[in-house]
């Protein structure tokens, strides 16, 4: 008997909008893994990391952006990093890997006045000369834990728990509405 087929479904069904020059969209089908550095094998981990990414593990708030493998790496705990993007080729290189892809909802927000909207909910200092392109911070917005990542001059990615995706989207959307 044929087995049923399971469909993948994104948390916000690919939401996208533009309000007053600020665009907001869900980034669908993201792939995220966490990798942890073993306590007793620091050197090996670093060596593997350098082999893969050509660089030492980045330290917060700086993230590492790579073309090949096409991914971004940033530190989420003292001995833990997130790799976002092309993760399938990386998994096997590390001892402690946890798939995080489905735990998060990802939004991208961009536009000229994007900071005016973000400052309504984001406690991090986003002055463009302080929070540089490639910087990220894990923090809290409207009582929801989240990660904010600056990917371009006026573009930010926001990650928050997938179960409260709708509340998180509402928080970000309201911020845009309130300043436009």
């Amino acid at each position, binding site marked *: 008997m044929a087995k049923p*087929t*399971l469909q993948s479904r994104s948390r916000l069904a690919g939401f996208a909008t533009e309000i007053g020059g600020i665009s907001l969209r869900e980034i669908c089908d993201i792939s995220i893994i966490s990798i942890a550095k073993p306590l007793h094998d620091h050197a090996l981990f670093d060596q593997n990391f350098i082999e893969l990414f050509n660089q030492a593990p980045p330290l917060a708030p700086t993230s590492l952006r790579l073309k090949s493998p096409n991914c971004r790496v940033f530190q989420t705990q003292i001995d833990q990093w997130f790799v976002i993007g092309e993760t399938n080729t990386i998994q096997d290189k590390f001892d402690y890997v946890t798939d*995080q892809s489905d735990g998060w909802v990802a939004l991208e927000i961009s536009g000229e006045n994007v900071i005016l909207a973000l400052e309504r909910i*984001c406690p991090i200092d986003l002055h463009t000369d302080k929070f540089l392109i490639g910087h990220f911070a894990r923090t809290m917005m409207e009582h929801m834990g989240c990660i904010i990542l600056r990917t371009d001059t006026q573009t930010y990615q926001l990650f928050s728990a997938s*179960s409260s995706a709708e509340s998180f989207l509402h928080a970000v959307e*309201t911020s845009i509405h309130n300043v436009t």
Partner: protein
Amino acid sequence: MTQINRLSGGKINRDKPCTFTFNGKILQGYQGDTLASALLANGINLVGRSFKYHRPRGIFSAGSEEPNALVQLRQAASNEPNTRATVTELYDGLYATSQNHRGPLNFDLMAATDLLSPFLGAGFYYKTFMWPRAFWEKLYEPIIRASAGLGKLSGEEDPDIYDKGFLHCDLLIIGAGPAGLAAARVAAHAGAQVIIADEDFLLGGRLNSERHEIDGIPADQWASETLAQLQEFGNVRILPRTTVLGAFDHGIYSALERKTDHQLHSNGKPRQVLWRIYSKRAILASGATERSIAFPNNDRPGIMLAGAVRSYAKRYGVAAGKQISIFTNNHSGWQIAQDLVDQGVKITAIVDTRDIPPPATFSGVAIMMGTQVVNTTGRKALRSITLSNGHVIQTDCLAVAGGWSPNVHLTCHQRGRPEWRNDIAAFVPSKSRPVGMSVVGAANGDLTLGAAIKSAHQTTNAVLKSIGFQTKRTQPPRAIDEAFAITPFWHVANQKHRAWVDLQNDVTTKDIKLSQTEGFHAVEHLKRYTTLGMATDQGKTSNVLGLAVMAEMLGKPIPETGTTIFRPPYTPVAMGALGGRARDKNYAPIRKTPSHQWASEQNAVFVETGNWLRAQWYPKLGETHWRESVDREVLATRKSVGICDVTTLGKIDIQGTDAAAFLNFIYANPFLKVPVGKVRYGLMLREDGICYDDGTTARLGENHFVMTTTTANAVLVYRRMEFARQCLCPEMDVHLISTTDAWAQYAIAGPNSRALLAKIVDNQDLSNEVFPFMACGEITICNGIPARLFRISFSGELAYELAVPTRYGDSLIRALMAEGQEFDATPYGTEALSVMRIEKGHVVGNEINGTTTALNLGMGGMVSQKKDSIGATLSQREVLINDNVVRLVGLQPVDKSHALQAGAHFLELGSKPTTQNDLGWMTSVAHSPTFGHSIGLGFVKNGHMRHGDIIRAWDGIRGRDIPVKIVSPHMYDPEGAIQRG
């Protein structure tokens, strides 16, 4: 309607007239007016009633210190009580009414209380209304409550929305008067990130109300030009209409920006925004507030602060009266006189308490030195003043210049105490102010313009340097210092008449005298006994005066009498603004499970479980009572197969070479030797030996475990595990990460669960031999979708929990239901889950409630004393292990038709319901469709020895009292044969 008191000039826009309504009268003013200035322009000065004696009250000030002119602004749900007319920006269509009177404003029936004032002195209520006892709530208090209070809330939900935000800066400048602007100029040029905030809608502070020159141009022009320059700097953020409310730790300030309060409608945008400003340094340039003098009957409408009279004339182009007189104890009274004359306002007399040569002369103005005002007349408007030299002067406006109090408020918010400066007769900020805050200008006691600007310039340079900015060597803006000298004069002694200190709360010098007589002379006692400074103005104009009067009565200098400090907020702030977006459903984030959409389609009833919404039951057509649905779901599960979304359980991924050892430490029961491919139930204790969570943990690999926690404790368990990992076991190689949201997890329970699962798993042998009870594995389903399968059972049935990546969760529940049709697969909600776990005797938060031990729960044997684990040691304290502690039992009604109630207490048959006779309590109850009657779990003293006994379940609060039988908590399949089957 003509604006009879409107002068020429002023910073109002005569091209933008505004029509507004006050107490039903339609009036006109201009954009740039405040409600107060527009009322004065229209010749209206009676605007309210005082709190206690309901005395007529007029406009007293021109700023946020206003104690008198409080109105109800706007209508219906938008009505805002206690709004200061003096800071309410006029807009077309503004609607306001006066408040705190019964009958019309000019004939307040409550004014009769004024006649009783000899009996209503400070604290009179502490001495009476004591008899008979019951009359307090029934008679006295309702009368007091009805007459107390000020404005009235609409009672309707606030129709406006609010927002909050975060701002960061190197330098926060509080106040955009001369000192603030001078500071901002320096900081802007230095390249610092600057925020300059001012509560006013027109920036410039006193420069808009007084006549000065700065850098050779009129000071108000200098202010607007400076602001225009500041606008050009990308590193300066100017926030008008923004009150800095409070100074909190480490340079955090709260500020309220009024976004739409100057408009008729907010058009769906936030009315106000509460900013949290994170500053490296702050400069307080908040100016000074003028204060009054306590003289007999000094509370009549028309008696105003002198600076306010000037402000109305110069800034608003309004004469506060036709015949203005001035009462002063310092030079600013004379400066004000000059400014008024220049503005074309008629002055009748200047009365100065100081016996010095007059600092100036004005033609046609009576000048009296060394003279006091000893009485006034005019009930609803000032008519005349009587002087100590016997003169009576007809006047409709008395401008009182009692000296200036620097606005030290924010320096006190961290309990800094200001210090007294005799030369200016005022409290100034001391060193004990918030870290990182500097004070400049009048706020720091530099009351004259030149000094204020100079101090601001210098201080800002120093502050910037201290945080690493290079400042250019520039000269401060040039301004001269006006003459200023004061001889303190606080109150006119008089036995007969009352002299007001706190105008809103009706605190007079007589009250202060009484307070002193009765021993309430500590400043805090004075305030608390008389209510001095407790009104909506927080004593901005009255605190120093009251303290000074007390000092005189005690014959002590002011510093020895005490100081008075201010608390946040600087001015009152709407609760809506502090609440921000947290309204209705937005109070807390909503977490939804992967089957939420599908469950909604099934008409599921949802229940809040923490922030989660979970399906509580799935009503079917024709079911009229929730119990029908729940009973059906239970029976269907026990008969065939049921499916429940258990995604909300906390999930923690644990990896590392020491993962097993770590689990062995944080769980009370042994975990070292759990085989790969097996799940074990675990009990977690706090270090005090009390249980706080339980769950199952699966060993997926030698160094890899997956833990589940209860829904409620997921965050707490993770936090405590990180504590154990980082603080107690720092040498263990173990790594944690939450995966709660990453997996959709379904319980599939019932005799047909294996058959149903078999239809979707890829190549996984589900037989008892290969995949027995408590087995687990990483598998694939539906042709390659990764999944985890756990053979665990909360229902007591043959059961599994199946997890897939969240993105497939919606699809999986649909697939399971479709494939399960042949078994009549039934979705069940949290109620059925609960019924089955009670039947089975599993404990949840009702039992693991933070006060119960493993012993109480019947799991004392699980707490290993052969290893070090959190809580094991203290769980053995004498009182926790004595023979008489409560034990978990099952309970059944003796009369099977009785329903048990959670929260009932247990008593021996025939014993009285008293604290001493309490045997325990019912924790969980359910109607069991399996057994056909109500069942319960509960704690009974020594209950494990009492199976079969009959006791009372006493539920007095619901008027029930029934006999119940103690049984084993494991009522369904106590041997566990079914779940192992």
